[in-house]
């Protein structure tokens, strides 16, 4: 057991533990905080995997962006300290069983499968490489998807403003 391994297990525990809490706690704000931890754990995992760029993106977008957004929306829509309503126990058990069965199925497949790593020379996920390929227009370049995603983000931006601004209709 070296430090890296211990770190890995800690991160895994953090991701799964706070993820589990995020979906089970009855207080919405806490759930958001747990989610935050889970996402931070994920970022840590990326660091551990030496994908620093992704880790950075994760921290910036998820931890810094989406979580904050969620928390804002909680403030906008929710009375503080109010506990969330829960589903019927039957439904909860059903969901748990379904999730577990799915998980089991997936794990069985994963375990049965033998993944063989490529023998090719590995390519470092450095920012230079990423940048070259991301904005490359030759074969294997991601310039076009990049642009598409930019437009998507723009559309989402405008769209969400429009949706949120719409005056409430009096039909209920």
């Amino acid at each position, binding site marked *: 057991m070296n430090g890296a391994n211990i770190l890995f297990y800690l991160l895994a525990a953090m991701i799964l533990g706070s993820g589990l809490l995020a979906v089970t706690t009855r207080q919405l704000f806490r759930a958001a905080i747990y989610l935050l931890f889970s996402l931070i754990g994920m970022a840590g995992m990326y660091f551990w995997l030496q994908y620093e760029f992704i880790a950075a993106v994760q921290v910036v977008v998820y931890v810094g962006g989406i979580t904050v957004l969620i928390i804002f929306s909680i403030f906008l829509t929710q009375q503080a300290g109010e506990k969330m309503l829960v589903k019927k126990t039957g439904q909860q058990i059903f969901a748990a069983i*379904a999730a577990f*069965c*799915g998980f089991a*199925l997936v794990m069985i*497949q994963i375990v049965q499968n033998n993944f063989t790593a490529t023998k090719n020379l590995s390519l470092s996920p450095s920012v230079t490489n990423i940048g070259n390929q991301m904005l490359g227009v030759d074969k294997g370049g991601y310039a076009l998807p990049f642009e598409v995603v930019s437009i998507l983000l723009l559309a989402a931006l405008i769209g969400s403003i429009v949706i949120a601004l719409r005056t409430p209709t009096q039909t209920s």
Partner: protein
Amino acid sequence: MPNATYIMLIVLLPLLSFLIMGLFGRTYLKNTAGIISTCLSFISTCLAFYTAYGYFFEYGKINGVYQKLIPFNYLWLAFSEGLSINMGILLDPITAMMLVVVTLISLMVHIYSLGYLKGEERFPTYYAFLGLFTFSMLGLVVASNIFQIYIFWELVGVSSFLLIGYYYEKPSAVAACKKAFIVTRFADLGFLIGILVLSFYAGTLDFNTLIQRLTSPESNELKSALAASFLGISALTWGMILVFVGGAGKSAMFPLHIWLPDAMEGPTPVSALIHAATMVVAGVFLVARLFPIFAISAPDALEIVAYVGAISALFAAIIACTQTDIKRVLAFSTMSQIGFMMFALGVSKYGGEEGLGYTASMFHLFTHALFKALLFLGAGAVIHFVHSNNMKDMGGLRKQLPITHFTFLIACLAISGVPPFAGFFSKEEILLAAFQHNQTIYWMALITSGLTAFYMFRLYFSIFWNKSYHPNHQDEHGHHGEGGFVMMMPLVLLSVGACLAGFIPFGKFVSSDGTALVSEFHLQFSIAPVALGLTGIFTALFLYKTENDKPDKMASSLRALYQIAYHKFYIDEIYLFITQKILFNCIGKPAAWFDKNVVDGLVNATGNTTQVLSEKIKKIQSGKVQEYAVYFLVGVFGLAMVFIYMWK
């Protein structure tokens, strides 16, 4: 050779009259319709006489045998190589005779109607229908093809329908015309199937070929037709019987006669033309046309013809004695006389002396056309005068209607078979033929001829003698008189015919095989029928000459018989029962019910099931996003399982 154009003109001129009257009559020819039609009819009659003269005296006879000539034949509809409908002209003695009869009576009726229907609203329509009828009847008699005869057969049926329904606002007329059409249509079904049977075995529809193939003993067609059998009777006999059913329907033979008395709802001249002189003898004509096949190859069928004819003759005569509507009496008398013609054909054999019945039948057809038309036209004059059909409203009319009275008397004498009037000669020949071949029928015929004399003179005395005539007081507007020249001229002409037609040596012209047949006059044989006829006349004289209660007494003493005969042996009621109860209630209604409830119900049930199911299925669309997610997941995992475990 015959001039085909002239013969075609005979047929087509009435059609022209129909077209002119039908298309332009209502608007342009309101007043002149009758004149134009009569002129066309006159031309047609002249041509018919010309043709008959030419045929009988110039070109018809080759080596002493009258030939069957086909001056015109046009392929109208080709089914297959052998079978085709041709529109043609077949000229033989009976055609020539019928051309004369039809055009002559038609002309008489055309003229007569000028007076009878004067001032009618639908005058042109009436003449159009007359033209249509004459055209169809002439087409029928010149037909060279069995399908052609069927075509015109239907057309005369429909023109009869139209003319019976001429007074279309009278419900009884509407019922009568429908009845006439449907009953004859039912018979035509038999005719049609008969044609199909015959054409199948003979491989042709052409009369000459058909007769030739089905009579020569060595032909394959005849052999196959005799070999094939259904219910123990050969196909040929079936075919001929079925064809005869058609003829029986049109000729009002028992038991398909029920339409004829009701058909008297039409205008009286129409009854004279269609339901006395021409159309009703079409059945006789048909049997005569196919006579060689009947006589040589299907004697069983011919026997049926004989018995049906004899039974109808007697049956109708009995009924006629009790009827009080003068037109109905005449209608039953017509039926009875046609029965005579039928059984005359039925007892006849083919060729030579044995073919006397055939000649007699045609002769009777000819004379009957004259005196029966005369009777009807006379009755028309009476009805025109008293505005009633019922004998009870008449009596003592001999003063008011002298010409009518005289001509009517001649016709009565003719139909009763009193010498030397026309009916005597033809009836004697028929009785002789029956006597020679079938005693049963002979006795039936003898009784019938006695009855005939009785009911005709009953009619005569009731109209013209009996009580004295008191005109109805409401008939102020009445155009009292005999209807003028146009109505009397046909009566006179026809009565001349009824007096003299008997002296025509008919056997020389018309015989079963075309050779001349010299009919001898057997004085001792005539004693019985004439005596019986005179007995009938005197009985009628005794009962009906003056107003008395003897007839009523007699009727009440024979109450049951009288009632049955008065109600026409309840045949109408039986038919009504069959059609109403069985056809409508037992087949029609269930069929309609079945369609509405079962077939339609199944369709609707399919629709409803779909609707109910979709009502259930739509619940899945609950609007709850998590339920959708569950379905989605189940689907994904289901598919994943399938792909993982079953596809490998």
